[in-house]
């Protein structure tokens, strides 16, 4: 299978400073993969994913999206295939009403008006935005604004969906919407990249994790492998979900536990297996 995103020796240095934000990273992401990107603040997560839509261009190295080198392409051209949900919704929303905001993307894709409207309706239903449609995006609360940001990309149905810290500042209900979104995108066969500090979210939804530290890609593996690697976790100051930590501790103490649990359900089944012995 041809990878949808291919990164070759990517290095990025911001023009303002001498800081190397991303150092010599190479990786491939296949269509349909759900990938988490983790690391401390300032480790280069956002810098890395901004290259996938062309908002940043490599200082050296290559980024190939959908078979095309992004360097000569304009953001507008890449955006038809790649949707980027900003970390800060204030940087993403600009229209006068939520309805216009949701329709802006699909209109730019030259879709017929009834298709645009149908997509807006679907997004409204999925994200529960019925009450907000005619409001100015700045007049609604921050968590809802973030949902509008995701919905405005969702209406474009990009092949690659990039979420930058989708659950930061969200309450329980809106977080559940993010879970539903990622699962729906997986079912539809989209590729999803999720930059997050929310390990519980990642443990549940992603198949693969990229771990960044000071601009280096230090690990590329499944969540189970990443969370079990004590060295990687402590050197990046990240902590696995509590249930995973518990399962790791229990495995250390009684080696009868076979697998590291990523969720409560997995933990329950491990305990059952243990008690049956």
């Amino acid at each position, binding site marked *: 299978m041809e990878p949808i995103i291919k990164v070759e020796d990517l290095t990025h240095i911001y023009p303002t400073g001498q800081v190397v934000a991303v150092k010599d990273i190479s990786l491939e992401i296949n269509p349909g993969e759900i990938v988490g990107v983790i690391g401390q603040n300032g480790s280069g997560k956002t810098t890395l994913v901004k290259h996938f839509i062309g908002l940043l261009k490599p200082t050296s190295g290559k980024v190939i999206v959908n078979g095309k080198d992004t360097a000569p392409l*304009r*953001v507008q051209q890449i955006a038809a295939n790649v949707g980027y949900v900003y970390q800060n919704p204030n*940087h993403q929303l600009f229209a006068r009403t939520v309805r216009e905001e949701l329709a802006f993307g699909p209109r730019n894709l*030259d879709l017929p008006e009834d298709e645009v409207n149908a997509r807006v309706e679907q997004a409204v239903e999925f994200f529960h935005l019925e009450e907000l449609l005619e409001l*100015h995006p*700045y007049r609604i609360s921050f968590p809802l604004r973030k949902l509008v940001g995701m919905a405005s990309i969702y209406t474009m149905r990009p092949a690659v969906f990039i979420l930058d810290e989708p659950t930061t500042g969200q309450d329980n209900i809106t977080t559940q919407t993010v879970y539903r979104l990622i699962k729906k995108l997986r079912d539809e066969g989209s590729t999803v990249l999720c930059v997050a500090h929310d390990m519980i979210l990642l443990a549940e939804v992603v198949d693969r994790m990229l771990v960044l530290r000071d601009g280096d890609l230090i690990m590329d593996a499944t969540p189970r492998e990443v969370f079990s690697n004590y060295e990687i976790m402590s050197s990046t100051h990240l902590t696995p979900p509590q249930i995973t930590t518990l399962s790791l501790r229990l495995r250390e103490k009684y080696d009868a536990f076979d697998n590291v649990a990523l969720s409560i359900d997995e933990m329950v089944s491990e305990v059952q297996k243990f008690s049956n012995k």
Partner: protein
Amino acid sequence: MQGVVIPISMVPGDSIIHRINPLPKLAWAFGVLVISFATRNPLILSTLFVVGVILILVAQVGNAYLKVAMILFPISLTLIVLQSIAPAFPKPWTPIVSVGPFTIFQEGIYSGISMLLRIFAMTTWAMLMIMTSHPSDIFTSLQKIGMPYVLNFILTMTLQLLPILQNEFAVVLNAQKSRAMKGSGFGAILPSMVPVFVGAIERVQQLSISLESRAFGSSGHKTSYRRVRMTFWDILLIVLGIVFTAGMTYWIIVDKSLDWSETMVFHPAFAIGLVVFATLGFLAFVVIALRNVLQA
């Protein structure tokens, strides 16, 4: 988020000029402003401009200054064109040459050149001051000489708002591009202006809340985190600035021979060449600027 952002703010550095107290710099920038408006003499204006540029080079803020000058240049070229056919001068005007319905006047060329030099002399010195002083230092120094706190705050906030607005513009443009914004030309730029201004108003609202929640407007002596020292040399520079400005202004008023509008005669070929160059130059800048904005 770069591209359209033009930095009209401090450029950090450690040159002699950076180390001077903001007050003498302010005094000199203001002095140059007064002199520039007092005279049309090209020699005085160009001397002020050249000295300003030398100081810019000493302060090592040449790159940032060049970006500002690049914006001023096309604007100044339009002045030459407009002035040459409609001088801001008492009539009668002396015609040099007529091209179709337009007549280029002797006073027009003189006035155009002196206005261009005047703009460059003033902005060079103003930029020198802004680019080498920390905004808070300007703020504290002005307060020391009795500028009211609120007025002072308004001034510094305005100075800081400019880069913020420029940044905001880049942010909105990026957001629209990342949703496959169509179109080119002004049609594509205009829709991003609305959110920029809405965003700016939103920001001012937030600012006023955060100001009030931190006791802005309470009475009492205000202290500053940054300390500004005033040395003997700074005071000497201020005195020199005031003496220089007053002396120059006096000389300009008294010595009528400094008005060269009659004696500096322009050859018709020079006049036509200048006007054509200015027109073409302006058009070229507009085209280049538009292309840059659209490709950014």
